[in-house]
């Protein structure tokens, strides 16, 4: 193990700092002002910390879902759509239901998982049955999800008092309890961390986890050893979508308290970077999600005070992905050089 290999994450963090400083200089602000705006905006008080953890939670669900699919060698870039469908079902049901509060929250979360699971499952079934490339199908399904959601909340599901494309508000008893008083941080964070723990156990200690890893790393060998690849394919994309959809539902019941077509500023795409930076290890993904949560919430503050647009963060995410992906090769080369 070379230094680069082991500390790839730290190298990535340093790279982020350098790149963001550069972006700030180009935009005409000093990096010190920019970073202090970012950090104060993300961690400067309980309100700020709350918003950072809200973003962390929103990123954590889709990142864990993506992680599960990637482990099986399936590139799910449709977490955004799966999250939207989950949120839509949860929001639609929550606005219509009349049951006891804990049951209502449970039903909304369950519907979120089902919605996301169906959306991911479509791509999984297409892959298992027709060998349809899951990268293209999951991305196409993002657009279909956005179109379905817009159609429904502009028409039949639109709240009677809504100003934009959104459902009616959930009654307050259907809201997930908050973790820090006077912030929007809800118990969804606990749920996300629990899922990370469960996934760690699944990957390390269960037959399903073993089969996932086998199918992802050596599909031919897995097939010869009697692993049912078709079943694994639809199952892992369904579960992957279900986790993302659960995240969508948790945004509805925990944060926005209604479904809105502007609900996700691209969480499902940033989550790809989160999953890769977390090296597909659920516990590291939690750390990565917190890092990106700081960027998301602090980015808004930075945009306001340092004139650095929040969208520039996608640029940085992309660079991190490239550098992390290349580090394995660079590390091997350095090792070879040292051996010679």
């Amino acid at each position, binding site marked *: 193990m070379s230094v680069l290999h082991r500390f790839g994450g730290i190298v990535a963090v340093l790279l982020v700092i350098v790149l963001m400083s550069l972006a700030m200089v180009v935009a005409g602000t000093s990096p010190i002002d920019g970073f202090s705006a970012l950090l104060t905006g993300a961690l400067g008080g309980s309100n700020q910390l709350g918003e950072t953890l809200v973003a962390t939670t929103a990123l954590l669900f889709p990142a864990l879902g993506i992680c599960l699919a990637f482990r099986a060698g399936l590139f799910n870039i449709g977490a955004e759509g799966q999250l939207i469908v989950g949120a839509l079902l949860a929001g639609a049901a929550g606005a219509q239901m009349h049951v006891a509060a804990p049951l209502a929250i449970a039903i909304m979360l369950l519907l979120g998982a089902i919605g996301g699971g169906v959306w991911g499952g479509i791509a999984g079934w297409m892959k298992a049955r027709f060998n349809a490339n899951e990268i293209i199908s999951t991305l196409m399904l993002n*657009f279909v999800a956005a179109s379905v959601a817009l159609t429904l909340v502009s028409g039949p599901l639109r709240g009677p008092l809504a100003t934009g494309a959104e459902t009616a508000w959930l009654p307050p008893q259907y809201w997930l309890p908050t973790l820090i008083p006077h912030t929007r941080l809800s118990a969804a964070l606990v749920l996300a961390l629990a899922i990370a723990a469960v996934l760690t156990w699944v990957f390390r200690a269960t037959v399903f986890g073993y089969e996932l890893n086998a199918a992802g790393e050596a599909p031919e060998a897995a097939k010869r050893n009697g692993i049912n690849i078709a079943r694994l394919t639809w199952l892992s994309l369904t579960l992957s979508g279900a986790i993302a959809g659960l995240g969508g539902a948790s945004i509805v019941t925990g944060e926005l308290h209604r479904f809105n077509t502007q609900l996700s500023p691209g969480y499902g795409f940033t989550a790809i970077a989160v999953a890769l930076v977390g090296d597909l290890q659920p516990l590291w993904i939690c750390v990565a999600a917190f890092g990106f949560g700081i960027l998301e919430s602090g980015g808004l503050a930075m945009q306001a005070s340092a004139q650095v647009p929040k969208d520039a963060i996608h640029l940085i995410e992309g660079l991190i992905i*490239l550098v992390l992906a290349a580090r394995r090769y660079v590390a091997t080369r350095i090792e070879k050089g040292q051996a010679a």
Partner: protein
Amino acid sequence: MEILSALIVLTLIKATPIIYAALGGVISERSGVINIGLEGMMAAGAFTAAIVSYATNAPLLGVLAGIVAGGLAGLVLAIAATRFKVDQIVAGTGINLICAGGAAYGLVLVFNQPGASKQVNALGPNYWVLVVLAFALAIALQWLLSRTPWGLRVRACGENPRSVAAAGLDPLALRTFAVTLSGALAGLGGAFLSIGELNLYSDGMTAGRGFIALAAVIFGRWNPLGATAASVVFGLFEALQYVLQGKISWLPADAMQALPYIAALIALAGVTGRVRAPASDGVPY
């Protein structure tokens, strides 16, 4: 009759950017590199074309700059995929984020406004040249790939790069060139979007066309002419939503936006077992 001719013209316009990207996809995959970054390369081309046309008031220069920008993004993927042996899917995803984020950032730097550029000089009625060029390039690429020594080498790279090396050629150099060309074509498609069809760049304007183009590559069985025909089909579904708007009362316009994507999904599922990707497609050498 009027509707029919409007539909045909609109189909050709909507198909053009997809054709360019799909041709890029064909050439890249035939050389053995899956180009998931087509979407970002289109965005790079669209954004750069708009910026250069704004700065110079010469849309033609804008188109050329769009080609160069797409080519540079292609070169980044090429180097990542050949020299650094990075997972091609991961690298392509990174490039998509870099290009979309870079363009969003660039809009603020250049125009001091997020979301969309100011209106710029566009090709105007001359856009049809690029429509015709798309089909001409498809025929040229079909001939190049199937009838020339270079085409044979590229195809060999995608099937069995070792045999190319055994013949004394450098598969990595061939792949690098093919993927750069792929990006340049996608960049041209992007330039058509921003200053051919419209006269500005806006965030998200590529709207998944890079991925629809990848579906066209598969549906067209990795052949330039096949991929072009598939792109025209997807263009037709995109055009249909405009022509049918308001004509089908039970189907709202928002729902019709999903048409091209559903068409691509059905196409993907419909070609089962009848197509075969190049043997070394996506495998680093």
